[in-house]
């Protein structure tokens, strides 16, 4: 136990969900007769769920400031529908289409952020309004008909990393490169951490826990690289997955390493104390809501890219999956608590459940029931743990 703590850090509780995720994958793989851990299924799992995880990134920050955003599904649907219609009508290139979607997201976010930050109307209400307004808007402007999107967008929703270089690697070289970069970046950051470990306290930490950590990451990432890279020809690590990874890194940095991130946690933890520490609470509220809707637009783009057309029902009840991911990841309803990585693990638990139950031929009705129970169990477990600690 002492050794495990040295490798993983003092707080082992944060790994319970990781263990649960790994257990789920293994159980589903056995129960489905090996259909779970295959190249094509993992590729599907990622490209089919990236949009929910993107939403969860924004939702995490919204929940940390002590608010909730119910409108994300409607905003995603609305922004991609506006994008599809304008792009078709004026025959716009794909990048202009994307820009339009992001701008619509930004306007929607500014609208909701305004009501929250300037008028003090709780996010639950403003976004409940937004949920209806934008859902109605989708149906209104589309006349209840699906609209195809520029074909280039397919790359964003269902594309794969390109194929190049020698064939002797036995897998997709882009994926291989990505995996190698990931491992290298992690290894370098750990070694840096080790060399700086004595700077403040004057006591250098032991090297072996760093080595073990690098080893574990190398094995896990290496295996994932092989899994994603060795599928049928033409497939590799999906583009939506790559976009998601970039966003995860970006939002990890925003939440952990920027003043804005600190302000988000400060406002969620104690609004009055944050204000007296020089935090602009209104601005923090506004930007967090704005950011959420922009990410909703990104999620919409990923989704319609995959389905090649903007549909009137796109985005329905996405907010629930996003919110569930954040809470399974251990965030607190009262705000101030939650991390990007834990939220992503929470989102993956939901995704693996969906995927695994589908592979086993469980119907959508029962899947829904099971997901509900999992959400309750995860949060109850978290609450129980916190009670026992404090």
């Amino acid at each position: 136990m002492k050794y495990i703590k040295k490798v993983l850090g003092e707080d082992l509780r944060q790994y319970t969900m990781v263990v649960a995720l790994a257990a789920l994958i293994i159980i589903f793989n056995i129960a489905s007769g090996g259909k779970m851990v295959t190249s094509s299924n993992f590729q599907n799992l990622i490209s089919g769920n990236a949009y929910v995880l993107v939403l969860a990134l924004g939702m995490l920050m919204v929940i940390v400031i002590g608010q909730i955003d119910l409108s994300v599904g409607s905003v995603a649907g609305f922004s991609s529908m506006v994008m599809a219609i304008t792009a078709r009508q004026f025959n716009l290139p794909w990048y202009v289409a994307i820009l339009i979607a992001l701008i619509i997201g930004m306007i929607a976010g500014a609208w909701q952020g305004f009501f929250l930050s300037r008028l003090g109307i709780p996010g639950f209400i403003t976004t409940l309004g937004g949920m209806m307004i934008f859902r109605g808007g989708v149906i209104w402007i589309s006349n209840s008909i699906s609209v195809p999107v520029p074909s280039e967008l397919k790359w964003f929703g269902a594309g794969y990393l390109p194929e190049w270089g020698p064939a002797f690697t036995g897998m997709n070289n882009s994926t291989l490169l990505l995996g190698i970069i990931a491992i290298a970046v992690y290894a370098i950051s750990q070694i840096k951490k080790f060399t700086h470990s004595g700077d403040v306290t004057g006591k250098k930490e032991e090297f072996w826990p760093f080595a073990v950590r690098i080893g574990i990451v190398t094995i896990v990432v290496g295996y994932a690289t092989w899994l994603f890279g060795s599928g049928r020809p033409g497939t590799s690590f999906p583009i939506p997955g790559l976009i998601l990874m970039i966003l995860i890194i970006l939002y990890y940095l925003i939440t952990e390493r920027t003043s804005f991130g600190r302000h988000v946690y400060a406002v969620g933890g104690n609004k009055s104390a944050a204000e007296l520490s020089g935090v602009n609470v209104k601005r923090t509220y506004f930007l967090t809501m704005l950011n959420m809707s922009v990410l909703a637009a990104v999620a919409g783009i990923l989704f319609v890219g995959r389905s090649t057309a903007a549909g009137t029902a796109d985005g329905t009840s996405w907010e629930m999956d996003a919110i569930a991911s954040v809470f399974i990841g251990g965030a607190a309803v009262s705000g101030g608590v939650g991390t990007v990585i834990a939220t992503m693990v929470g989102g993956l638990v939901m995704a693996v459940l969906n995927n695994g139950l589908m592979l086993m031929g469980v119907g959508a009705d029962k899947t829904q029931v099971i997901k509900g129970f999992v959400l309750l169990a995860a949060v109850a477990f978290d609450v129980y743990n916190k009670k026992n600690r404090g």
Partner: protein
Amino acid sequence: MSDGYILQMNNITKTFPGVKALSDVTLNVSEASIHAICGENGAGKSTLMKVLSGVYPYGSYDGEIVFQGKKMTFKNIKDSERAGIVIIHQELTMIPELSVTENIFMGNEIVEKGLINWEKERKITRELLEKVGLHIDPNTIIKNLGVGQQQLVEIAKALSKNVKVLILDEPTSSLNESDSENLLHLMLGLKKQGITCIMISHKLNEIAAVSDYVTVIRDGKTVDGYAVEAGKVDENKIIRAMVGREIENRYPEHTPKIGEVILEVSGWCVEDAKVPGKMLCKDSTFYVRAGEIAGFAGLMGAGRTELMRSLFGKNMGIFRSGTMKIGGREVRINSVREAIKNKIAYVPEDRKGLGLNLLDSIRKTVVSANLDVIKTKGLLDFDKEKAVSEKYKDSLKIKCRDVGVGVSTLSGGNQQKVVLSKWMFPEPDILILDEPTRGIDVGAKYEIYKLIHELADQGKAIILVSSELPELLGMADRIYTIFEGRITGEIPAEEANQEMLMKKMTITA
């Protein structure tokens, strides 16, 4: 009844995993007396009261409780209340949106045929309020009452339960002087009616004023207990027993090195944001010099905090007029951020509500008002953050396992040191301390006083707001008095005394 004691707690021992909170504590309380319990924070006073009131049920502690000659085995608060022991906590537990009547009968509603008999409840409430000297309508909503009145309602609620022993945990900590006096008076009245009061308090002058017997608890043990004659209490003796060491001076020696005027405020007027037309600050004019500690004396609600928060980036009320000069140059500060940039720091009176984010760790809190300084290439640098917080941990002697632990795990004194670190880190020239030693034990207070002196010696202008007059007299170089939003006096500390200050704090002109 045994030996005239209404209540005896014999050899109480209570252990939490890893900690012995109480060991062999004995408490004997005579009927119809006022019994004071004092001790440092964390000495075990509250734990003892929780044992008595059944929060910690019978069986979870060793020792026995004898009440009116019978051995008691309380399983919960309801049990102890039924026996006639009622505790009034430091934090009031009234429901703000409900009326006085509803609060008093909360959980004890008078029900007839399944419905509440409001007439009867209101009638009894009126009688109870009369008893505690509160002349208000029983239908008044709690949130419209002042803290002092709320406390009286709490006592009325206790009376409605046929209380025999009333426990008051730091009853005056959130009251102003006149409300405190009122409360102490009421306790004397209750005593005449045969009700026993147990009072936990830090305020030795209050203990001296009303109590018949003092028990001192230190480190979970009874260390001293003696009968006192009201008005004749050796305060130093109690302090000695509490901290277990001699404190020669409750306020450290200090020779101020006073320099140029740093902060100059004139004609500062602030209107209440909630009550139009009501002025929180009226034409306030004052100055503070480098190296000087300027004391601000005023009763709660006099507008001290309002003035300070208005100066700190217009954080409270609506600013109407006035000018502020820092180092001779006029400045216009409209947000807390600008105030921090202009080298002003404000340590709020409500530590948990305004000073800290209780979810944060020490290291995150210490840097939270000055994040830009710990950045490397635009990103927060955790190594710098750690180095900064370690520095303050060492220099302020913050007792903690690691700077990564949550501030919620610290004692009041250590939490206050963390808040002070947070405001020392931006290196302010003007440091406003609003009740910096509230709810802190004597030992930690002394350390904070020394720190304030050090900061003054570094040439900072210090504003010390306090409702404890001895503290102001012991610490400040010059004292301003505030009454109803107006500065009513300015007195050099060596010429000031308590009576004189109190007079200026209660009468205009």
